[in-house]
């Protein structure tokens, strides 16, 4: 199987998942309890006004037409109008998306970098404190529910030792000056992102350490040593490079988990992002909003899954060059 076949397969697969999710999204929200109409339409409205509103939200079309309209509009990112705010969902989401991306990318990058670095370090220094630390951290992060840990941090640093803000993405009103504003943002970012990093890096480090140890025991590492390569070269160019395919794949495979984790993180830290928007919308039965947010999150998950496959194909020559061998 060549890389191209591989790629095409993954694309088709991603499209199928997208289709399933779109259909799910459509079906569930049409079937939601407490008819959408009750939500948007005040019983005191005149029949005409009621009709107009039904039309505006497209509630009168037959289901198939609604479905078609829905699919086509979603693909154009026309996500309808929020029941609660009467604003286009797309623009409400667009407002929040950058916040989510900032939080997410910060947490993700730090988790990855710290986790991998600590893991590599622990693999090199067997039997030292570093190794014990990594094993402990791995176990800890496996068992502790993220939201519990975040609540603890919030109480400790937000309320007890008040060194971090307790909610939001920035101070209101924001400080003057671009640099101060930037610092303010960072200040707000530390707890939500940091808690994710602390919860995330342990299992990363543990995984990296284990794969590194496995790689360091391989024959080609002895070859590299026999060749007289410097230690650093052996470690990075041979050991780390050869475990990159599984690590990178896992990095991307962990993306969906982090994307969905954003819902909880954003709720806890009142982060003005997509995840919290979803939660608010669900609790307020604001279906178009919930639908839009869910669609966005699902899309992110599909894309990151696809990237995982793609990157796996790219870093592993056995797939990229493709000589028949499947992993």
């Amino acid at each position, binding site marked *: 199987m060549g890389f191209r076949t591989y790629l095409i397969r993954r694309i088709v697969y991603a499209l199928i998942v997208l289709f*399933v999710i779109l259909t*799910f999204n459509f079906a*569930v929200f049409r079937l939601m309890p407490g008819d959408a109409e009750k939500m948007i339409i005040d019983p005191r409205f005149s029949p005409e006004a009621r009709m107009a509103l039904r039309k505006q939200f497209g509630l009168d079309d037959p289901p198939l037409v609604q479905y078609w309209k829905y699919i086509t509009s979603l693909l154009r990112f026309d996500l309808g109008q929020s029941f609660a705010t009467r604003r286009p969902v797309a623009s409400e989401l667009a407002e929040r998306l950058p916040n989510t991306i900032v939080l997410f990318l910060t947490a993700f990058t730090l988790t990855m970098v710290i986790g991998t670095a600590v893991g590599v370090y622990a693999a090199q220094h067997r039997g030292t404190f570093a190794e014990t630390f990594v094993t402990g951290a791995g176990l800890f992060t496996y068992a502790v*529910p993220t939201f*519990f840990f975040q609540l*603890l941090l919030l109480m400790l640093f937000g309320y007890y030792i008040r060194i971090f803000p307790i909610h939001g993405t920035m101070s209101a009103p924001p400080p003057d000056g671009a640099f101060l504003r930037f610092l303010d943002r960072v200040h707000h970012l530390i707890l939500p992102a940091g808690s994710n990093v602390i919860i995330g890096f342990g299992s990363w480090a543990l995984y990296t350490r284990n794969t590194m140890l496995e790689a360091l025991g391989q024959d080609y590492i002895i070859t590299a040593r026999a060749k007289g390569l410097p230690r650093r070269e052996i470690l990075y160019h041979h050991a780390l490079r050869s475990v990159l395919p599984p690590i990178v794949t896992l990095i991307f495979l962990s993306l969906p988990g982090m994307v*969905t984790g954003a819902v*909880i993180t954003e709720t806890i830290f009142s982060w003005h992002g997509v995840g919290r928007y979803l939660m608010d919308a669900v609790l307020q039965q604001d279906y178009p909003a919930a639908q839009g947010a869910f669609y966005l999150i699902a899309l992110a998950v599909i894309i990151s899954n696809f990237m995982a496959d793609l990157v796996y194909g790219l870093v592993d020559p056995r797939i990229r060059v493709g000589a028949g061998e499947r992993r």
Partner: protein
Amino acid sequence: MNGETVAGQAAVQPAPRRKRSGIADFWAQYRRRPYGLVGLVMLAMYIAVALAAPLLTPYDPRKTEFFLADRLAAPIWARFIIPRFRNAPPTSRYTIHPDQWKVERQERASLSFEEAGDRGETAVIRFEPSVEGGGGARSELSWKVHYGFNPPNTFEGKVTYRVEAPPDGMTRLSLVIVDPEGKEYDIWGTAVYGEQDWTTAALDSRDLQMKTRLNMTIFDDPAKVIFSTKGDYRLVLKASSESPSAEAKLFLAPAKFNILGILHGLLGADHMGADLWAQLVYGARISLIIGISAAVIGVALGTTIGIISGFLGGPVDEFLMRVADVFLSVPTLPVLIILSAFLGKNMWNIVLLVAAFSWMGSSRVVRSQTLSLKERAFVEAAKAAGASDAYIMVVHILPNVLPLVVANMVLMMPVAILYEASLSFLGLGDPRIPTWGRMLQNARAFGAFTELAWWWLVPPGLAITLLSLSFTFIGNTVNEVLNPRYRERS
């Protein structure tokens, strides 16, 4: 000779793995692993707590037992470790029986006692008819209580009374608290014109009514002001009557007076004054039920799909595995959020939903095991003997994948528990059921943070953590013992 009997004979020795002494053997290996034992002990403790919940706490959080103490009351032991709670009051509840009233003053009135049907003994104050220009009759009863703590935040009381008087009679009733220095606080009062049947008046220091009566603003706290010193307080019931035409009678049933504690129980109280220890203890039941049932359903589903997929192969296999892939690529938590909002906040909905999104892992493992079992001689033999596919799957394959299934099930439990906790925490849990997730959600939503009430936050979180840890330990150990080949995975 029919196929069944032959297949049945083949089933006598379906696989080398299943032995008579299986369980004893398993236990002999299991007990040698410290992590497994720790997990088991922890789980046993959880189960004991869950079963003995009614013995461990007098309260039942499924009933609405509010204001057992003040809102956000701290645990009793906070007195010893947190300075601001050093002399904080626990809850004191008093029932003032009619004969406990001490007569302070009687003017043309007399006190007696009589049985009043189901109300039991009541105190009766008889007021003589009022005379022209001479004013009415009055009576003052008092009840003494010692208070020796820092000021409380709240007190509340109940006065139950009945008035028998001619239509032109007017009976006044009021409650006054006299502090040790003799200062009087008029906390409640009423006037009854003519007759009134049994009435219960509730008084509460948080009520605006009392605050205005005391000339306080809405931001003042009567309880704090009144009980600001330590010593003997008197609760004085003042009654008077102006009844020109005939005698008037005031009946008093037992009255209640409660000072809500700032300290309460083992873990304090929540925002509604409900007992947190009771919620924690009953939460163990819920978490175990949810975790176990979701895992059992999910893994049963996964096993069925895995066996069918692996055994039948071909397009069925392809289809089922694609479905599993799709389920795996879907963002689980958001889907669960939306579906549980859609299906309604009900515990069993959550169980089913978690199960529906957690079968994929076990189905893959079971499938690959089935694939290898399919090639084994005893399956071939059963096939040759004409046994049906369903028969082979149930009788030959299933028992052989069970060790995998069991381990998977145990490892699934913490996942299910965490999902439930997350959903409850997000406010999508069953509102009638006390769960640890809901405790955390309440803690966050109702002021545990501003009060730094870590005793509200830490126990449920720790309970979840340790329970998932114990399941993980057990699951991994079971895996090590039963499925040494799969040890590195999972």
